[in-house]
């Protein structure tokens, strides 16, 4: 593994995105406008299970929207150029790490916007020291699973639609555990109850990264 190569690629991702500021704007706008539409549908939600479920659904769709472009923004020529320069495993690890950081930030932003519009009442009784990490772990988990699938969908020459079809069944069990863990945290349960869910989610994340690391070289060569 080449740590220097990975950090270099990470910096490349960051610079590319910084040059295209509208990308950030579009991700943030997607989340905020979705939440705003929901706000007009429900006004203030105080019911904890519904509040919880709606939040995760919004975050899931935000993740699909944000990560769908992950492997689609470069054309064939640039992809070939990158292929000659870097090892595929470095590329996938760098991009996964970058997407994980983006999703961590996006999940926190979503939570803030969600609490602002839909209401933060359910969070008053919550163990925030557990709930917020669960949200971040969830966002990062989505990023890890969807990065490989985004590459797969891009290779299949099909856009975000195919990614959603491939991604939903794989993300679904993770989503169920996330909803359960965050519901427990909202109910004020401690680490002794939520701990095993968080541990299990982290384990899934590690397995996903391992699989992406193993499989990506086969996806990359054409």
């Amino acid at each position, binding site marked *: 593994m080449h740590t220097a190569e990975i950090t270099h690629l990470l910096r490349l991702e960051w610079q590319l995105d910084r040059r295209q500021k509208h990308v950030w704007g579009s991700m943030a706008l997607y989340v905020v406008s979705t939440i705003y539409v929901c706000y007009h549908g429900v006004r203030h939600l105080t019911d904890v299970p519904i509040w919880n479920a709606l939040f995760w659904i919004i975050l899931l769709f935000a993740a699909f929207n944000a990560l769908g472009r992950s492997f689609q923004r470069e054309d064939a020529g640039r992809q070939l150029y990158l292929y000659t320069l870097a090892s595929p495993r470095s590329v996938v690890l760098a991009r996964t790490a970058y997407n994980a950081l983006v999703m961590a930030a996006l999940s926190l932003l979503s939570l803030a916007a969600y609490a602002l519009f839909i209401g933060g009442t359910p969070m008053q009784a919550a163990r925030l020291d557990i709930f917020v990490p669960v949200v971040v772990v969830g966002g990062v988990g989505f990023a890890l699973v969807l990065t490989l699938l985004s590459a797969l969908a891009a290779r*299949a020459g099909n856009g975000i639609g*195919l990614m959603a079809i491939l991604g939903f*069944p794989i993300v679904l069990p993770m989503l169920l555990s996330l909803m359960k863990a965050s519901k427990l945290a909202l109910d004020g349960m401690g680490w002794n109850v939520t701990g095993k*869910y968080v541990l299990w989610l982290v384990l899934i994340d590690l*397995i*996903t990264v391992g699989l992406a690391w193993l499989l990506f070289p086969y996806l990359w060569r054409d």
Partner: protein
Amino acid sequence: MKGCWWKGLSVLLLLYVVFMGLHTPLGPALVHTSIDRIAPGPVTVEATGYNTHFAKESPQVWIENDGYRVCATAVTVNSDVVFSAQFTVPAGFHSNLTSLWAWDSVDGPVVLRDAFFTEGLGKDLQGEGCAVGTAERSGFSFPNRTILNETIRNLFFHVPMWFTMMVLMTIAFWQSLMVLRTGNLDKDQMALSAVDVSLLFAVLGLITGSIWARATWGDWWTSDPKLNGAAVSVLIYAAYLILRGSVPDPHKRARLAAIYNIFAYVLMMVFLMVLPRLTDSLHPGNGGNPAFSQYDLDSSLRAVFYPAVLGWILLGVWAYTLHLRAARLNSIADEANDR
């Protein structure tokens, strides 16, 4: 015919399973009482049995509370499955739940556990009370469980469907690994055939499970980790087929499908193994619910269940080889047409 013995074996096993699984009677049991509450004093109970033979030999009847037995003072047999019995219920039973028992030499002991809610509790009654017959019945039958009743036979159909699906998905997983190693298109066809047949078994598993759930839990579908796992596996393999459909180039299609299959299979297996253990579940074998093997996969069920598992798996593999041969012949025919 050489090398085909296992196909014959699967047919023989499944014939045996269908015959024994549907033909073997359930063991006798008591299923219903006319009253569900008793208090100290004289009580008359009419009880209904299932597959019992009370008319052949009048049963000895007793009620049992926390190990203390009170025998009936009089028993009138109305038919093979109905008798009425009179008791003098004493004061001072320990527990508020009393079971009703009957014994005759044809049926052995039969019981309706916790049949009566009991009043007049105390600590007065010690020892075992009256003496009763204990000889077990002879003959081959399936256990008669409350709620499950006759549906216990579904064990030989529902459970092996999922085992067969797992075996076929594992074949598909293995062939996908081979596709990535060798780039061989025939391996890709093998993976596709295995997925197609495994989806058939998944659908059969869902249908048999749904019927069973309706009969025992009262609903066609419940939100349950095992059921969610089943739904997710079906969705994953449906997505696999859609992914294949959207890539025209066969080599590229083989590689992309193999990557998705490996990724999905590993994650799905982890989910199926771990997720049900994290949450409560109605399904046997999870969340404090014992699997059949732990409480009553007794010798009579085992004698049919193990052949059923082997027979269905062999049938699944047979279907897979047929599907594969048909697909290979089709591709040869296509090539011939192109020329």
